[in-house]
């Protein structure tokens, strides 16, 4: 845990014990079993020299990062938690369930190489769910597992003929968009082409590592970070911005690599990484965005993912949606949805996850909007599970307004 001392954002000693993180933490509000971010991150972090001193309730932290948002001393409390969880699992065995949740990229890479692999992956999930097998290994039985798309984003992208432009951006699809929501990635390419950008997809990128970090596979996450850092350096040197449509991927690449693994270079690369709507908004400011948008007479409610809020860039998708004529988008502003990546997929965290999302679900159901917009894939999954409404990535809507 060398990073704890070296990285000022992760410094335990800056904690004044003001309790802002405890009162903001959605998990602390949902269960008395969690001792809260202050006691786990900064307080326990100070004891990291005591080798076997592990705070058992660290398992409850979902890494949603509301503690970081609330902290007046600028401490990345959640990162301290993840460093401690990683240290724990260097000495303890992972449950099978965590192994599965952390490595969906590996599984899907295999499945896509086999004939009918995706069909069987989906079938396997369905049988696993109906037979209670998933529940038996600790995956929430009440949940519909995310469906894998028959064709991945990469498979669809390879077949696409783009118009070549001198301006280029590099797209980092991330696992969820690649395997579960390729239409979001395709919408992004369409939007960039409309704005006279050519999109490059670098197939040497691997999973950003977010699912590995939260399940305590810190060494594997560092390995992924190392591989991606090499590619990110390459694209930075080419002066091509790297863009993601997934707010957890962008947070990992921009900020968490540096916080967790502490290399100077990761910070430099971070400056070249953009959330897709953050990038589009910067085009708007330069007068470089095509603003000929078709009216869409529809109403949506927008949920800002926590991993976007923590980036300190405001809510750029919401600002951009306001440019679409006749479109009405209200901001739900009702806190965390509760899923936090793979946290809510765990059987023993399912009830907590649904309790955290309660306020948001009520807000969405009580709104007259016909559907929901959110930049995060697992947030959308949770919203569709917890409400009767459909959820889309705002990029899908923007692409529609350009058509």
């Amino acid at each position: 845990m060398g990073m704890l001392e070296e990285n000022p954002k992760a410094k335990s000693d800056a904690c004044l014990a003001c309790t802002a993180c405890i009162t903001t933490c959605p998990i602390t509000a949902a269960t008395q079993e969690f001792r809260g971010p202050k006691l786990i991150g900064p307080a326990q972090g100070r004891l990291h020299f005591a080798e076997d001193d592990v705070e058992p309730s660290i398992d409850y932290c979902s890494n949603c990062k509301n503690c970081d948002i609330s902290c007046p001393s600028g401490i990345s409390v959640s990162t301290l938690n993840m460093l401690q969880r990683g240290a724990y699992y260097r000495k303890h065995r992972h449950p099978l369930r965590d192994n599965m949740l952390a490595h969906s990229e590996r599984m899907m890479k295999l499945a896509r190489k086999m004939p009918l692999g995706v069909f069987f992956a989906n079938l396997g999930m369905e049988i696993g769910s109906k037979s209670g097998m998933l529940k038996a290994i600790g995956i929430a039985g009440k949940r519909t597992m995310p469906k894998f798309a028959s064709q991945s984003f990469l498979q669809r992208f390879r077949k696409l003929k783009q118009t070549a432009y001198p301006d280029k951006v590099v797209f980092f699809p991330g696992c969820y968009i690649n395997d579960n929501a390729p239409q979001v990635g395709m919408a992004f390419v369409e939007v960039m082409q409309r704005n006279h950008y050519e999109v490059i997809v670098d197939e040497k990128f691997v999973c950003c590592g977010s699912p590995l970090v939260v399940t305590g596979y810190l060494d594997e996450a560092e390995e992924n970070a190392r591989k991606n850092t090499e590619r990110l350096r390459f694209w930075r040197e080419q002066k091509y911005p790297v863009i993601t449509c997934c707010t957890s991927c962008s947070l990992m690449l921009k900020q968490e690599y540096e916080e967790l693994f502490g290399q100077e270079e990761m910070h430099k690369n971070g400056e070249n990484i953009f959330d897709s709507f953050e990038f589009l908004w910067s085009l708007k400011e330069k007068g470089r965005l095509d603003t000929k948008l078709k009216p869409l007479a529809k109403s949506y409610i927008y949920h800002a993912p926590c991993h976007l809020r923590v980036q300190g860039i405001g809510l750029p998708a919401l600002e951009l949606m306001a440019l679409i004529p006749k479109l009405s988008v209200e901001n739900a502003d009702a806190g965390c949805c509760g899923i936090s990546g793979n946290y809510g997929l765990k059987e023993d965290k399912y009830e907590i996850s649904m309790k955290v999302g309660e306020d948001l679900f009520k807000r969405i159901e009580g709104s007259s909007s016909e559907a929901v917009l959110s930049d995060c894939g697992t947030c959308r999954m949770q919203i569709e599970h917890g409400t009767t409404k459909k959820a889309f990535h705002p990029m899908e809507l923007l692409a529609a307004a350009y058509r």
Partner: protein
Amino acid sequence: MSKTDVIVIGSGFAGLMAAAVSVQRGKKVKILTNGSGSFPLNSGLIDIMGYPDSRRACSSPKAGIDILPDTHPYKKIGSEAIAAAMDFFIKLTQEEGYPYQGSLAEQQWVPTALGTMKPSGLVPKSMQGQCCFSEKEILVAGFKELKDYYPEVIIENLKTVLGTEKNYTACVLETELGGGRDLTTVDIARWLETEAGFDNFCRQIRSNLPKDSVVILPPVFGTKPSCDIFERLQRELSCRFVESTGLPPSPTGLRLQKMLHAYLRRHQVEIIENVKVMGSLTEGRRCTGVFVRNAAREQLHEADDFILATGGFYGGGLQMQVFGEVKETIFSVPVKFAATEETWANEELISGSPQLFAKIGIDTDARLRPIGTDGKCHLENVFTAGRNLSGYDFCYEQSGNGVALVSAYQAAMSI
């Protein structure tokens, strides 16, 4: 980022109030915030003025303000704006359904977790403790496993303030919340928000309740800015409840925060979370924008006017690395340090004497614009609100939240 009319830096009580007043004046407002303010440490009370010059409470906030020195922010702002700020706040709380009461003409008395009665200025309904003086039966209720709230101790102290001729009863209630952490008033407040918790609480208090009692208990009537739990309890149990102040984290501070956020949301105030404002861009004596650091890079936010509500030493608005050199890092406002190593702090923390360091802060003109080294305003369109102002010791005076409210109002009205 798109340019706005007013940028407020900080989302503590002063920042949120400055935004509320600005937006009410028809301005487009953006808040930039690093952290969510110190509301968990905030009693939720708006103390206007309790002890201007001695350990004897002044008869009214107005009487206290009248005898303050000219260097005090209240004196710069003036009594008209103080009254207008209080009116603005009361109206806001009524609109939001969590009304506060109080005036410059009289102190509001609130019981504390130690069993003293403290003077305050504007007080939410559930904390009004005037009835403790008039009623004869006082029941003090604590909760099992809630630390630092001991009904017997509270009663012993209350006797010295309220007199020994009343009937005092202590009781300890149970939440059966269990779990692996220390119980806090926020946990109990969340428990009371559930039907099961509410019923359980009613059952227990009913069996302890002498007729026509005033029930004093820690601040536990929910975490939301609403009087529902308080009013329902008074109705169902036909007695008078008073929430005292308590230890952090404070549900009453969180209610204040949630109320202001709800107000700002309804009025379309934009809040950019988790950004640290690093510096400013100026043209002559005007500021045109501030630089923030976000997750990956620096970004410029532009506006016509700026309100600096970054707090004092605790909130990070003022910093001192080298003794005697106090810095405000965003606008590089000069901050005087009128103290020596011998006088800056009074070593006895709980001595009942003021602390000189508490009065260190930014000197301003009447419109709350910081004064530069040349004696003129430092920047024409930068205004200051809250704890980074010089000339007041909120702990000693008991003017916490009061100076913040009034200076936020004045700063926003000066634009």
